[in-house]
């Protein structure tokens, strides 16, 4: 009896923890799991279908969760499109995702996830619009800061904000140390998430720290070995590592 009670408590704790981590969208619902797999395999056509279904649901129900899902699936479609260098699909997905995330924010201004998706999608849109940085840069940063303020345990928000810190010139608030700090924090909050490690790997690689990059990308692969983004970064890291072995490095490594 005591054992079964403990099991129930443990299950409830697990469920509540999961719910707390994903305040708007159940990460383990079958459609989300299937869509994530399509993202991992960079299946553009499949994700376009998923986005189409989500769009119909959002238009039909006009519910917050439906818009949130539509925004999230568009983020994943962007990732899949990028793997195929399909700029047209990418831009359309980012635009539709922004509109969906805006709607989600409007319906639930207290949702950290909605603000995070909006900030992330605005950042996605920037390189595909003439003057994108000036049009969307500040707003994207504000949305991501809001997401963190609303939920200081939102690991995805830290990842998106870190990317923003990394690519913004220092004179305009960018900070590479801050980017590393936020990615490390995201990895601490969600030790099994792959995204913080992928970005840490990329940033270490760009700084010439190949061993750190390899360690991080291996952590990402352990978390999710199927994601094509991860495997792309892994190929870059291993290729750089091999080059380094063939020819002694002359640059400053670490």
């Amino acid at each position: 009896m005591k054992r079964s009670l403990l099991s129930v408590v443990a299950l409830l704790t697990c469920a509540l923890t999961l719910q707390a981590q994903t305040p708007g969208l159940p990460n383990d619902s079958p459609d989300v799991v299937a869509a994530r797999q399509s993202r991992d395999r960079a299946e553009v056509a499949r994700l376009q279908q998923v986005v189409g279904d989500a769009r119909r649901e959002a238009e039909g129900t006009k519910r917050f969760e439906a818009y949130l899902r539509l925004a999230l699936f568009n983020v994943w479609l962007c990732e899949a499109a990028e793997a195929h260098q399909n700029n047209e699909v990418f831009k359309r997905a980012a635009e539709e995702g922004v509109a969906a995330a805006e709607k989600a924010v409007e319906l639930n201004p207290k949702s950290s996830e909605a603000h995070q998706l909006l900030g992330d999608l605005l950042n996605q849109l920037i390189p595909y619009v003439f003057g994108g940085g000036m049009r969307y840069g500040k707003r994207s940063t504000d949305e991501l800061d809001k997401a963190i303020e609303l939920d200081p345990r939102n690991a995805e928000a830290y990842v998106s904000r870190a990317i923003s810190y990394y690519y913004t010139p220092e004179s305009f608030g960018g900070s590479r140390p801050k980017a590393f700090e936020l990615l490390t924090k995201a990895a601490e909050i969600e030790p099994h998430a792959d995204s913080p490690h992928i970005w840490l790997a990329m940033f270490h690689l760009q700084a010439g720290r190949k061993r750190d990059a390899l360690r991080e990308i291996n952590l990402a692969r352990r978390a999710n070995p199927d994601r094509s983004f991860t495997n792309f970064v892994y190929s870059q890291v291993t290729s750089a590592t091999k080059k380094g072995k063939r020819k002694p490095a002359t640059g400053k490594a670490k």
Partner: protein
Amino acid sequence: MNTAHARRVRLLKCLLALVFAGSYATLYGTQYPSAKQEGAERFDEIVRGDFFAGMMGDDARLERGMKFCEEILSKNPRHAEALVWHGGGLLTRASRAYARGDSALGDGLWERGLKEMDEAVTLAPGHMGIKIGRSATIVGLAQSGWDARDARGRALLESALADYEIVYRWRRPVFSTLSAHSRGELLFGLASGWSILGEHRKARAYLRLVLEECRDTDYEAEARRWLKGEPNAVVQHDCRGCHVRPSR
């Protein structure tokens, strides 16, 4: 956001202020032809303090600069310098509207700002300061985001680069006497703009010109890095040493 994408991205949040302030003020210098003919104080010296402060977030000073230009434009709608600065101010207002999520207002201001800058160059095709103000802004905007299928954006960038090349020709006889900042920013603007348009040979030609014209400067080192790297890369350059001058 993912890899290749992120490598291309430069989240230049306040780029307008950066390019306009840096390039206009420094390249314009004191030697442009029409200024010599005017006895009065140079227009840009009167307004730039307010505009630069405004572009960096001081709304009151932006409004003061805008009002000054509007008073001049109400008397003479063809005052090209007032138009180019006012256009820059409208773009700043657009960026504020976008930041608030007001895209409709932002789009309207954005269009008007670009239109005023275009008009200014049309009205005064021989005015170097106006060409620099517009070109620096457009090259900067293109660096912060670019849609290769956007025909209007392409035309804007092409015209901005054509004007920058004219400025270079005009300044060539005295180029070596200009500050390293002026030389470096103009040539990197050209390299960057052409690389965005996919004209990589031209871009590399300007990078090689940086080696000659900006010897022993940080610009030379930066150009060398780009020349050693991927030949078809988009040249991203952050303005070195731009700053907003205090109010007069």
